């Protein structure tokens, strides 16, 4: 039997009235990669925080570590001594400091008054970087690095601090395909060095690719721990949500009426000669690796940048967009990738966030805003999108991620677009909420809206598009229909 790095039994946690974790047990073997899976709010983060010493569990829990004696809670001090580290999604790095300084930062905290030398810091950092075999320059400032490289810095940092058990919270959420592959390889090499890794991710295909076992939580209770051998995405999402999810491609609706036509559209340095037609009521999947020109194309279609060549036709008439206001006026809406930061004003009310795109519309005819009309509009969209809202006057930050997503959609749908461009609408959203968002998207298409769905997740493109266009280095490399292609071959085409 493998030896056990960490075993927890009978872990419960109560916050006020609600029992967030209920008698959960958790076991981690030395050198294994384990996935902790479950929907948002299932208790994953609470469990991690208990194992990391941030929260104290309710009485009755026991924790044991290999051969050491069992304890009833892990203090932050224990966690450090045992080498338990968490790399949170935001990485908790220092953007203005160099890579080397970020890696040795914990030394600074541990012995603040010991005189230090830059050279020693650089040497220590270089040692870890080499051990991990990653391309990092110790002298670069972290703010100049891409997210993927910053993640490597965070990993170097916990290695340097002597990590034995590393929790990685959503490490792949903002990475491209290739970067994810690199990260997965690093994860494997760490596990080969005897470091145990707990991987928290919403991307089930990655979970299955890198983890040996998966522990599933649902509503604060343990569903079970399973080997990933023979596990399928369908089965896993079923375990996480507790109900069956459709994993079949959408039936094409046979749309013929062109709404938006692109003829040899180009923008120097970004994309070239893109010709495609978007029909009424169609979901067009637009995919390709990051940097293939997907988002750049969307920016042109939304009037945020100008094309340098080619034509754009809307309902058969030439369309020139000078700004995104122009695009909105012509019925084009764009939901950007970084919705939660760029798409919402977090500390403003749900009502104001929903209505902000149509404020001037709502001011007509008298020239001032009526609170009643604002409320009506918001209520209508909250209901149509099935958003869970207690009080629309509350700040939008009071909502869960999935519901915030719906408010972003509502805000753009309020402009009554006939073309909706969605840029990676499910980044950082859990399985259940993803399904909800795709239900909405499918319904909108059925009602006649034309949708461009941008994503690099082959499975969601495959399941939800009528047609798929694959971009590669700024050009259309393939056009295909999901009903006549398998998900795996789509994935291959994207990565080819």
């Amino acid at each position, binding site marked *: 039997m493998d030896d056990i790095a960490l075993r927890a039994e009978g872990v419960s946690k109560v916050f006020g009235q609600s029992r967030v974790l209920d008698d959960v047990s958790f076991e981690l073997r030395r050198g294994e990669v384990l996935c902790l899976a479950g929907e948002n709010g299932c208790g994953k983060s609470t469990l991690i925080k208990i194992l990391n010493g941030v929260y104290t569990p309710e009485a009755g829990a026991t924790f044991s570590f290999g051969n050491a004696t069992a304890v009833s809670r892990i203090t932050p001090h224990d966690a450090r001594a045992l080498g338990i580290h968490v790399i*949170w999604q935001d990485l*908790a790095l*220092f953007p*203005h*400091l160099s890579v080397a*300084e970020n890696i040795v*930062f914990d030394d600074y905290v541990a012995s*603040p008054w010991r005189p*230090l030398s830059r050279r020693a810091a650089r040497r220590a950092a270089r040692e870890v970087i080499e051990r991990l075999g990653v391309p990092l320059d110790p002298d670069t400032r972290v703010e100049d690095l891409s997210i993927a*490289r910053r993640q490597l810095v965070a990993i170097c940092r916990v290695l340097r601090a002597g990590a034995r058990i590393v929790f990685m919270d959503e490490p792949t959420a903002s990475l491209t395909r290739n970067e994810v592959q690199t990260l997965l390889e690093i994860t494997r090499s760490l596990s080969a060095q005897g470091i145990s890794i707990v991987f928290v991710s919403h991307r089930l295909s990655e979970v299955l690719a890198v983890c040996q076992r998966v522990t599933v939580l649902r509503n604060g209770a343990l569903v079970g721990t399973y080997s990933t051998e023979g596990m399928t995405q369908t089965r896993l999402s079923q375990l996480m949500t507790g109900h069956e999810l459709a994993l079949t491609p959408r039936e094409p609706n046979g749309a013929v009426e062109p709404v938006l036509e692109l003829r040899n559209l180009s923008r120097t340095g970004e994309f070239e000669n893109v010709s495609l037609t978007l029909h009424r009521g169609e979901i067009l999947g637009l995919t390709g690796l990051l940097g293939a020109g997907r988002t750049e194309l969307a920016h042109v279609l939304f009037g945020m940048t100008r094309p340098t060549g080619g034509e754009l036709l809307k309902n058969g008439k030439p369309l020139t967009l000078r700004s995104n206001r122009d695009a909105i006026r012509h019925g084009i809406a764009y939901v950007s990738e970084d919705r939660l930061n760029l798409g919402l004003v977090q500390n403003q009310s749900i009502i104001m966030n929903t209505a902000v795109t149509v404020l001037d519309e709502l001011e007509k005819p008298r020239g001032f805003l009526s609170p009643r009309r604002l409320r009506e509009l918001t209520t209508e969209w909250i209901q149509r999108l099935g958003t869970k809202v207690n009080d629309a006057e509350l700040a939008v930050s009071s909502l869960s991620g999935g519901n915030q997503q719906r408010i972003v959609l509502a805000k753009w749908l309020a402009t009554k677009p006939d073309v909706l461009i969605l840029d990676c609408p499910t980044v950082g959203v859990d399985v259940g909420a993803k399904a909800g968002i795709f239900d909405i998207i499918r319904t909108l298409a059925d009602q006649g809206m034309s949708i461009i769905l941008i994503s690099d997740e082959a499975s969601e493109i495959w399941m939800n598009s009528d047609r798929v266009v694959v971009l590669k280095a700024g050009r259309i490399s393939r056009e295909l229909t999901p009903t006549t292609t398998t998900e795996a071959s789509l994935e291959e085409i994207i990565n080819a």
Partner: protein
Amino acid sequence: MPRLHLGTEGVLAAIIVVLCIVLGLTTDTFLTTQNLFDLLNNQSVNMIFAVGLVVVLIAGGIDISFAVAASVVQYVVMTLLIDHMGGGNWLIGILLSMAVGSLLGLVNAFLIHRFRIVSIIVTIGTFNLYFGLLMVFTGGVSIYDIPDWLYYSVPLIDLPAARGSATLYLPVAVMAAMSLATGFILTRTGFGRAIYGFGSSPEAARRSGVRVGLIHAFAYGWLGLCAGVAGLMQAHIVQEVVPNALIGQELPILAAVVLGGATLGGGRGSVTGALLGVLLLAVVQNGLNLLGVTPYAFRMIVGFIILVAITCSNLDKLLPRRAIPKEARP
């Protein structure tokens, strides 16, 4: 493309050198030992303030109460020394100024840390509070009768010069000592790097176990300490204590420190930068005086320099190619 990497300090130093050459060619008084020594003598007080302030800015805060705090220190220390200690001496004077100054700084730190109030609001509050108290208790009356040790200037270096002699006085040495001490703490101790870390990302620092209260206490306390010393030096230079002598100095010094590469966002800045920032503005002012330009134009030109400098340092972000992280580009 190989790029000469100077950093903010390098660019500032280069500009100062160019300015000095230009002023040396256009006036016959600028590049004299006498003028340069006077420049340092006159700027040492501002420089001591600046090295204190840069610590607060690096920690991601701001303080506008320090100049007024320095006036309070002058009064408190003078009153204590004259009325209760029979005049004192340099050592007692400096230690007392440091103690009172850091106490006033710690009040800011306490309010900011304990009540989670934004530093600018706290220091606007203490700025008014300190100045109000000072005016109420002194009735606006100056102290002319300062102790002898403080009254007589202390020459350090005396060089023969064209007219009389060029002399470097004690405040310059004090400024150098304060700069070295601050620089050492900021760059050569883990605590100093933790201040940068905290300014760069407070949440990350908190999670790394950085003692946030200690960072606040040090940053504002150290600025208070520097302000105390600066206050004593200012009283020494002008040979009197005037209650409103320093009020109004806070913004030009803040501007100089920002010019030296510190930002209001925290995590950036250096002692060298702060000193060069003060020096640049001083050279400009000195040059304009020597060129016979009206002093009224000075503020205008300072404003212009700051706007140009900040725009240039943001140029990186404005240019489209830099939108992509450096190493992500092919």
